[in-house]
């Protein structure tokens, strides 16, 4: 099974089970969770079932294309099922069958792996899924997102596509994967890994990244009308009514801040104490967006609740 056949098999599988098939987000994200189709839609009471590929950037994991397993950009296949159905594990195992892997002939294990994104103010409980000792997926029940308690709970399945493909194709080097007949993963990405590793570790302009972080951080406050003052118990205050706020452009700015922080981190430009402060700053604006998004959906009467009711 080629890399692209793997993607197609997952798209088909989840489309047949009622997921919207959407596209990767057009900004630099560290994981599929950052895509607004997950981060924002996991908030609030509206149901949401979606699946998509997410090219995910982890600047610190870059190895100049020299390590057979580590990449600064890899591909996740992300599935969100909200509310999480009781048969979510069975659905997941069925999806492995769709990839030609019969779980009963392998050793499949659900190993505790709680997930937390300090920058997104999000956390959940769940597992990493092992296939014969290889971590191929992460499985998370979101408990909180943007500092807001989730209700209902979203179930998130994240497939590590490179790892699964290496397993299916029986290769030890990611660059040897067949993306499509005649085209290897390395043909597409090896040079990119070297360039981005060089950029992230050596050449990224530290001042530029710092300035971009600051500017985008300010944008969030402007676009949401976020006040400097806090209310009781540290509650965020907004000078704009929910539907006057531009939550989506503000969220893009959050994604940018998170990305520039990651680049600065890889570049070794952030000290230990600064690191915590940066994370806290991103978490604050992520929370401001999450609260604004919720307020907007509420102001709109949570429209997808009606759609779901009508569908039943």
């Amino acid at each position, binding site marked *: 099974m080629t890399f692209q056949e793997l993607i197609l098999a997952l798209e088909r599988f989840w489309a047949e089970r009622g997921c919207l098939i959407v596209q990767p987000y057009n900004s630099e994200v560290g994981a599929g969770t950052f895509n607004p189709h997950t981060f924002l839609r996991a908030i609030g009471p509206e149901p949401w079932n979606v699946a998509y590929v997410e090219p995910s950037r982890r600047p610190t994991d870059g190895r100049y294309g020299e390590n*057979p397993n580590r990449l600064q950009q890899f591909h996740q296949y992300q599935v969100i099922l909200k*509310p999480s159905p009781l048969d979510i594990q069975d659905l997941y195992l069925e999806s492995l069958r769709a990839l030609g892997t019969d779980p009963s*002939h392998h050793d499949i294990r659900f190993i*505790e792996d*709680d997930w937390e994104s300090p920058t997104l103010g999000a956390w959940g*409980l769940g597992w990493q899924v092992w296939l*014969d*000792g290889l971590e191929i997926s992460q499985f998370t029940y979101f408990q909180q997102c943007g500092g807001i308690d*989730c*209700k209902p709970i979203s179930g998130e399945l994240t497939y590590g596509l490179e790892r699964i493909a290496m397993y299916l194709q029986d290769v030890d080097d990611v660059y040897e994967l067949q993306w499509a007949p005649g085209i290897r993963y390395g043909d597409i990405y090896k040079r990119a890994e070297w360039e981005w590793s060089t950029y992230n570790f050596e050449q990224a302009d530290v001042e530029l990244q710092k300035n971009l972080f600051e500017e985008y951080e300010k944008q969030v406050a402007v676009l949401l009308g976020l006040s400097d003052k806090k209310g009781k118990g540290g509650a965020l205050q907004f000078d704009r009514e929910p539907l006057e706020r531009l939550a989506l452009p503000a969220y893009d700015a959050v994604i940018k801040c998170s990305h520039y922080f990651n680049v600065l981190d890889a570049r070794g430009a952030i000290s230990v104490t600064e690191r915590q402060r940066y994370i806290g700053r991103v978490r604050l604006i992520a929370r401001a967006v999450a609260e604004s998004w919720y307020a907007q959906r509420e102001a709109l009467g949570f429209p997808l609740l009606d759609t779901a009711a009508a569908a039943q």
Partner: protein
Amino acid sequence: MSSEFLLEIGTEELPASFVTHALRSMKASAVELVGQARLGTDSLEVHTMGTPRRLALRLRGLAASQPDRDETVMGPPWSAAFETDGSPKKAATGFSKKHGVAVGDLRKQATDKGDYVSVQVHEAGKATDAVLTEILPELCRRITFPKSMRWGPGEIAFGRPIHWIVSLLGSEVVGFEFAGVQAGRSTRGHRFLAPKSFDLDHASNYEEALEQAHVIVDLTRRKDRMMDGLLASAKSLDGVLEPDAFLADECVSLVEEPFTVPGSFDESFLELPDTVVVSVMRDHQRYFAVRASKGGALLPSYLNVVNTAQDPETIAKGNDRVLRARLADARFFVEEDRKAPLADRLQKLESVVFQSKLGTMGAKVRRLQANARALAQGSGTDADACVEAARLCKADLETLIVFEFPELQGEMGRWYALREGIDSAIADAIRDHYRPQGADDVVPDQVVGAVVAVADRIDTLVGCFGIGLVPSGSADPFALRRAALGIIRIALEGPIDVDLQQLIDEAYAAYSGDAELAPADEVRASLGDFFRGRIRAMLKDAHGGDVVDACLGAWDGTSLRDLRSRIEAVSELGAAPEFEALAVAFKRAFNITKESARGVVDPALLEAGAERALAERFGTVRDQIREATDERRYADALKLVAKELGAPIDRFFEEVFVMVDDARIRENRLRLLREIADTVNGIAHFHQLGTKLQRRDPSISA
């Protein structure tokens, strides 16, 4: 004869630590709720079982039904219930109706607040199943987990989502609902080997039926099975299993039916240090290592406990591949690390924070060198080796392999040092300076390691006390108690003595220029008290708190071994039968003289008899006692005291009245006693001893 009751809660895969935690709370709640519901009997057995996918409770010896209960129920005040003529008001008719009795059955009961209406109620016991139906939802609610989660609609929190509940009393379902799941008799077997749900006909068939369905629900039995498999597989490889209790507990909690699948890796990876190979296998993959039966060398094999083994070859192949990548990573780290000598990492330690107010690890390492030099000179060892070991002891924190496997700190530093040709005493010290890690760990057995270990701990202690980071209650984030205990144990069990006072002063001086610490006097005092507290906590069980206190009182706060000699001497003497009288006598001597002035005894003023006898005896042995004390031969000193002074001082207190009216005689007498008390107090403060010393038994210590 009552029936067996079974409760099984079927869940998604619970983390290893959750199962034991949940079962403990389940058992405690079951005992409590069954007792409250009057279903307990003398033969009640409460047994819990669990796997990653189920928590089970078995009750045997439940009462066949709830016993009847007679109870007095209080009602409204009598005056509110009855007219003065005795005719009932509304309150009386209402109350009698509520309890199903006639108004005539109501009784008057006198209380502190006046007369009240009461009624004798007879409550017929309910059938056991009816009671269970009521208490089971509460039992489920009371199950606790290290962390709980919500799922689906998000209404209920539990360790993991619940899928089914079995609730059987004998062969009958005891119905109830929890988390939206209706209890019944349908259970499920192994997720992959027996995935279909099936009905249990009787509670007592539970374990057997599940075993048929590839689930060994009893944790102990499952572990025995797993260990048998591991040992047999190791043997078939001509090897022995590398024991790992933590890993065994973890693995048994990850499977419902354990199988062992052996795998292998390329022999060239054995060039890595054993600890690295074992750590990679254990930490990343939860594999057991195997050593050759002969010689004990690590074999290029591993044992993997799996949940499903329909196709062991496929499973081994997959796992081999993962391990190969992991070991290749580790080899890469080690090769990279070896490209530069350990000492090159010192520069990097300059930018690693030790503690925000105490500066960097680089500064700490410089202080360690100063501390090590002082300690080495104090104990007459090779100072240069100690200083060099102190310089290098933290360098491996900046290696790639320790970044990946923090638990290999010290071990890897030693390994790299040996390969650089660094002297083995120094290399060993890099590893050993982390010892003892806990109460069960050994202390460094070589001088250099012991010196660096003490130097490191005292630096942390002085620094933290200097900025007010003092442990309180259970909060001890810098493990300062363990650090102090480490120093005490090294001095008492290891190759070097420690002069605590000098140690604290040197470590304080080493901070000069690195950090703003509280004044030296304060740090010395608070840290001194802290050490005394630790010493007391450590030794009181073996010797008795009063013995430790008595010796701490006489101790000058310097040599820890000196303190130990005192404690041992007092303990030893305390075991002798004549000690009680001796202790009482010296306590008396101390108490009577503590306010009086010291001075030279005038022999002319001594009364013939007991007083003169005591003075003469003391005069002949005083210098011997003091000499033995000065030479720290406390056992000898105490033997002299007991042998030479015991009888005379007893006689003295029996025959001589101290507080006579004649001031000159009284003063002289007090001077004599004062001098004796001072001499004995130089060894230990007898007045701090309990008087039941000779019955001292570690099991009944204070």
